[in-house]
């Protein structure tokens, strides 16, 4: 016999997996595009490599925070679930 709490646990775990899996697709694509563009730019203008890679780092961190949000949601579902006692 499944209690409501069992169902909430099951749904939370599955949702946490999906949150990370789906939520990391878009940032991964975005970061890859940013990286290819940056490498292209460095290949064209090696002199500007320093400022390009600095901007790339900061920009990638901004893009990556979207994936981190998904991760935080998954962590909340797994370890600090508001619906479970």
């Amino acid at each position, binding site marked *: 016999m499944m209690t409501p709490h069992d169902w909430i646990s099951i749904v939370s775990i599955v949702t946490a997996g999906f949150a990370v899996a789906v939520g990391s697709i878009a940032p991964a694509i975005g970061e890859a595009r940013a990286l290819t563009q940056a490498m292209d730019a460095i290949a064209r203008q090696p002199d500007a490599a320093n400022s390009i890679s*600095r901007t790339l780092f*900061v920009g990638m961190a*901004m893009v*990556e*925070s979207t994936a*981190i*949000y998904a*991760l*935080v949601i998954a*962590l909340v579902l797994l370890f600090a679930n508001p619906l479970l006692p």
Partner: protein
Amino acid sequence: MDAMTPQVWLQLGPLGLTETVFVSGALTVLLVGVGAVGARIRAVREAYEVLYEMVEGMLQEMVTVDATPLVPLILTQWLFILSANLVGLLPVIASPTRDLSLTAALAIVSFGAGHVYGFRAQGMAYLKHYIEPNPIMLPFNIVGEASRTLALALRLFGNMVSGEIVGGIVVSLAGLLLPIPLMALDVLTSVVQAYIFGVLTLVFTASAMQVAVKKTVPETPTPAGSPT
């Protein structure tokens, strides 16, 4: 496995002092001590000065405003976050930056610094950036400021806690030697995240100061026919 809440080390009535408080306090004392003792030794002080000037030049390259007043803030954030991230590699001690409270405090410092330097650069006119380009944008600007601060806190927290959780899972699955490459990756993440936190603070603070610079500098006439 309780990844989200840090251990309480000392219970004072209703107030639980967590590991984070002790470890970050110890790091603060250590950093201040190294700085204070080093400043009294001539050779070390000169090394500090060279390094400080190097950092100052590096920061100045990144922004168009005068970065001199920002150097102490950014350098402190770099040193503290870097040491707080790396102290998690020691056995027993958990990195204080895997506690959301600490990263939220750091993000609030960065948020406050943006406003303090913005007000200092241009007085009450600084508040005008909330209603630019249009008063309708006020709620969006407020949400933008808040989400930027939230993102700063969550980025550092998420990166550190995910490294720790992955390491813990691999240890429990595979044993002693396999987590070592993951820990090496953790060192890289620690350094990059500390760098990024400081750079983002610098960029946000500089953008708060920038408005003033734009207004005080007399507008250069644009050549006719050039796109604006």
